C-alpha cells in the first residue's frame, strides 16, 4: 500500500496536533503528494480565501514512493493558495526532509489557522507538538536548522523552514529544507510565515514498511534505475553538469531571455554556464563547482555544491560564506544572470546562497531585478529610490538587492512584491515578465513556442515544471518537435501537463522524465501500492489533477483572459538567433488546447469532461 495511511492535522490557532486516517478513496483517485494534497486543499479551503489569512491552509504532502528505494523517491509538495498569484500554489522539493516525514509515519501534514506566537512543529514518529519559536523567529533558514539540531541534540533531524524574507512578507518566499533544497515558487514560504510557523523539524525511525509486493518492487525500481543510468541526460549530462548543462544550449537556439526579455541571446552566457563553473578561477586556482550531490534516493545526482572565491567583493569580509553550499542550478543562474545581463558567476552564486539562506525564489527575485533594471534604464526608477545604480549588467545592484530582499529592508521591500506589483506601481505593467503574477523561468517562448502555451496555461502562474516541452522541442525527448512551430503544441502541452502531474504525485522527481515515461513509473507504483496503477489510469489521474487545479483557479476568479502572455512576447519579435522575427503564437495554440482539454472557449471544463474525470 505504500501510503502510511496517516495524516497529521495541526491547528495552529488552538495549538493542537491530531492524527487522522488518510482518505484512501481519494488516494486511489489522486495518488499522493501534489494530487492528493491538492484534493484535501480544495475540499477544505474556499477558492476565494485570502492567501495570507488564517483561513488559508498549508499542506506538506509526500507520495507513495517517497521514502522508498525508487530512484528520486524523496520528494514532498507544499500546497496552499499562493500570495504571489492568488492561484493554487504547489511547490515541491527534494533533499531529505520529505523522506524523513514519511519514515516518521506520516503521508501528509495539514496546517490550519494561525498561531498566536511564533512556533515550530516538532515531529518524532507518532509524537508531534508545537514548540515556542521565539529564539529562532527573525533568523535565517540556515541558523534555524543549526539551532534546532543543537537544541534537540539530534544531528539526524531534518528541518524544513522559512527564512527572514518570508517573515518580512516577500511574496515569493520559499520553504527550504536541508539548507538548500526548496519548495521554491509561488510564495509557499510566505504563507508559512503568515501562520507564525517557523519550521517543521522531523525525525522518523519507523521507516516505510508498507510496500505491497517487496520483491516485485525491488525488481521494478532496479529496472527503473538502469533506465536512468543508461540514458545520456540522466546518466551523464545531469550528474556531470547539472541542469546548467542547458545554459549554452538554450542560448544557442535563441531562447535565453536576456535583460528582461528584451533580447533572447546573452553574450555572457558562457561566463555563467556549467562549463564556467567547472573551470579553475584565475584568482585562487579553484573551480566554483566543488562536487555534485543527490537528494534522497536519487541515482541521478544533478545538485551542485559550490564554493565562492574568498576574494570576491561579495564575501571578502564575510567568512561565513566561504564554505561550500548549494550552487547554481540553471533556472537560478539564468534569473540571477541573463535576466539582468549580469555575467559575474561569483556574484550569481553569492545571490543564490542568499536566496537559500533566507528562503526566497531566485527565479522571481532575479526576474524582478530584471524589471527594476529596465525601469532604471528608462529613468523611471532612480539611484536614490533603489539605493544603488542599477543598470543592466550590474552585479553590485543584483547582490545589493538580494541582501535587501532577504532582510526586508529599503527598496528590497518593493522587489519582494514581485515584478507585477512593482511594474504596476511605477506605471509600466507591461514590463512585468509574468503570467498570473508569477515570473517566467529561463526559456523564451519566442524561441520555444510550446513554452508559451505552457506558461499561459500553467495552474500556478508562469512555470517550466508544469509541462517541460523543452524536452521535446529542444532535446528531442520523447520525440523531437520544431521549437519554432506552433502546430501540434497544444497536444504536446496537454500530454506533458498530465504526465507531470502524475510524476509529481508519486513522490518522485520530474527529472526522471528525461529517461522515464509513465510506463516506467507504473510498474514501480503497481508493486508498491494496491489499486490500479496502469499507464492508462496514471494518465487519467494526471488529467484529473490538472482539471482539479484549474477548477480551483476558475473558482478563485481566473478566466481565459489570464491564460495569456506579456505584450512583449506577443508583439516584439526576437532580434537574433533562429527565432529572429518571431513572436509567440499563443493565439494559434490556445483554442486547440481548450478543445483538447474538453473545456469551453472560456477555458472552463465542460460537464462532460468533469463527469469523465470524476470531478
Amino acid at each position, binding site marked *: 500500500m505504500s501510503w502510511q495511511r496517516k495524516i497529521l492535522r495541526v491547528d495552529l490557532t488552538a495549538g493542537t496536533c491530531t492524527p487522522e486516517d488518510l482518505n484512501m478513496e481519494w488516494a486511489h483517485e489522486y495518488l499522493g503528494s501534489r494530487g492528493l494534497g491538492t484534493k484535501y486543499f480544495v475540499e477544505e479551503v474556499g477558492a476565494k480565501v485570502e492567501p495570507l489569512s488564517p483561513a488559508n491552509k498549508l499542506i506538506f504532502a509526500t507520495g507513495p514512493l517517497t*521514502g*522508498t*528505494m525508487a*530512484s528520486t523517491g524523496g520528494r514532498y509538495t507544499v500546497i496552499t493558495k499562493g500570495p504571489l498569484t492568488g492561484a493554487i500554489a504547489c511547490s515541491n522539493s527534494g533533499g*531529505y526532509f520529505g*523522506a524523513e516525514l514519511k*519514515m516518521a509515519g506520516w503521508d501528509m501534514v495539514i496546517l490550519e489557522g494561525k498561531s498566536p506566537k511564533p512556533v515550530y512543529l516538532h515531529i518524532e514518529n507518532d509524537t508531534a507538538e508545537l514548540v515556542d519559536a521565539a529564539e529562532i523567529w527573525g533568523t535565517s533558514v540556515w541558523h534555524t536548522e543549526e539551532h534546532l539540531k543543537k537544541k534537540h541534540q539530534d544531528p*539526524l533531524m531534518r528541518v524544513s523552514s522559512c527564512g527572514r524574507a518570508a517573515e518580512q512578507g516577500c511574496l515569493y518566499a520559499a520553504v527550504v529544507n536541508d*539548507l538548500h533544497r526548496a519548495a521554491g515558487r509561488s510564495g509557499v514560504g510566505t504563507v508559512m510565515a503568515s501562520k507564525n510557523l517557523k519550521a517543521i523539524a522531523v*525525525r*522518523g*525511525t*519507523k*521507516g*516505510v*514498511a508498507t*510496500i505491497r509486493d*517487496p520483491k516485485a518492487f*525491488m525488481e521494478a525500481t532496479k529496472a527503473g*534505475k538502469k533506465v536512468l*543510468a543508461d540514458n545520456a541526460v540522466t546518466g551523464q549530462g545531469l*550528474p556531470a553538469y547539472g541542469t546548467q548543462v542547458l545554459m549554452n544550449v538554450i542560448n544557442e537556439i535563441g531562447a535565453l531571455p536576456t535583460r528582461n526579455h528584451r533580447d533572447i541571446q546573452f553574450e555572457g552566457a558562457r561566463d555563467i554556464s556549467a562549463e564556467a563553473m567547472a573551470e579553475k578561477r584565475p584568482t585562487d586556482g579553484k573551480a566554483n563547482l*566543488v*562536487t*555534485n*550531490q*543527490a*537528494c*534522497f*534516493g*536519487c*541515482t541521478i*545526482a544533478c545538485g551542485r*555544491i559550490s*564554493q565562492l572565491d574568498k576574494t570576491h567583493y561579495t564575501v571578502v569580509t564575510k567568512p561565513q560564506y566561504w*564554505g*561550500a*553550499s548549494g550552487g547554481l542550478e540553471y533556472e537560478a543562474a539564468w534569473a540571477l544572470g541573463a535576466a539582468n545581463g549580469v555575467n559575474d558567476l561569483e556574484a550569481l552564486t553569492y545571490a543564490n546562497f542568499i536566496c537559500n539562506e533566507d528562503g526566497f525564489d531566485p527565479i522571481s527575485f532575479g526576474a524582478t531585478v530584471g524589471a527594476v533594471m529596465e525601469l532604471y534604464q528608462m529613468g523611471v526608477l532612480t539611484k536614490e529610490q533603489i539605493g544603488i545604480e542599477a543598470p543592466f549588467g550590474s552585479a553590485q545592484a543584483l547582490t545589493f538587492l538580494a541582501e535587501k530582499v532577504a532582510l526586508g529592508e529599503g527598496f528590497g521591500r518593493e522587489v519582494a512584491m514581485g515584478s507585477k506589483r512593482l511594474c504596476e506601481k511605477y506605471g509600466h505593467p507591461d514590463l512585468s515578465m509574468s503570467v498570473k503574477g508569477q515570473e517566467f523561468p529561463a526559456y523564451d517562448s519566442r524561441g520555444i513556442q510550446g513554452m508559451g502555451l505552457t506558461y499561459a496555461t500553467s495552474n500556478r502562474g508562469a512555470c517550466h515544471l508544469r509541462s517541460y516541452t523543452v524536452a521535446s522541442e529542444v532535446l528531442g525527448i520523447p520525440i523531437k518537435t520544431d521549437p519554432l512551430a506552433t502546430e501540434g503544441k497544444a497536444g504536446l502541452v496537454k500530454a506533458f501537463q498530465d504526465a507531470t502531474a502524475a510524476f509529481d504525485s508519486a513522490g518522485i522527481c520530474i527529472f526522471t522524465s528525461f529517461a522515464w515515461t509513465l510506463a516506467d513509473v507504473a510498474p514501480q507504483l503497481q508493486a508498491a501500492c494496491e489499486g490500479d496503477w496502469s499507464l492508462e489510469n496514471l494518465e487519467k489521474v494526471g488529467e484529473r489533477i490538472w482539471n482539479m487545479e484549474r477548477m480551483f483557479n476558475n473558482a478563485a476568479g481566473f478566466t481565459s483572459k489570464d491564460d495569456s502572455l506579456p505584450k512583449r512576447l506577443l508583439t516584439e519579435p526576437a532580434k537574433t538567433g533562429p527565432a529572429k522575427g518571431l513572436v509567440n503564437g499563443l493565439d494559434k495554440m490556445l483554442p486547440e488546447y481548450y478543445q483538447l482539454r474538453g473545456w469551453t472557449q472560456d477555458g472552463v471544463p465542460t460537464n462532460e469532461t468533469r463527469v469523465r474525470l470524476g470531478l
Partner: protein
Amino acid sequence: MMNSLHIDPSKCTGCLQCEMACSFENHGVFATSKSRIKVFDFHSTGRKVPYTCTQCDEAWCMHACPVGAISEDKKTGAKVVNETTCVGCKVCTIACPFGTINYVADTGKVQKCDLCAGSPACAEACPTGAITFVDANWTGLDRMRAWAEKLDTQTATA
C-alpha cells in the same frame, strides 16, 4: 577468494540508497535510521562519506563481548552478532574504536554490518560505485591502476 567492502568517498553523492538497502535487507523496511552503514555529509566541504564496519581481524567488539555473542563467519570474514546470545550490555559499542557497532533500543540487542552473508545489499544498491565488494587482498587495486596510468613512461624513456 575473500571479499571486503571498499569505500571510495569521492564517488558518493549522498543518495542514501545504501542505507535503505541495508535496512530493507536486515529489517524488511526502508528506514535509514536502522541502517548499519551511514553516509556522513560534511556540508561545508561538500564531502559525503559512507562509513561502516571494516571487519577487523582482531575485532575489538568480538574480544570484548562477555557472552561470546560475536563470532567470525569463516566464509566471509564478517564478525556477526548472534542475537539470541547477545544480552544488550553494549560493552562492544564501547570497545569498537570506530563506532560501527551500535545498540538498537527496539530489539535490546546490538547490530553491526555482517556483509549480508557474502553479498552486501549496500554495494549492490550503490549507483556510483562508491561502495564496492572486492577482493580483500586487493582493495587498493583501482587506486594503484589510476596512479600507474599517470606514469608517463613514454617521456621518461625517450
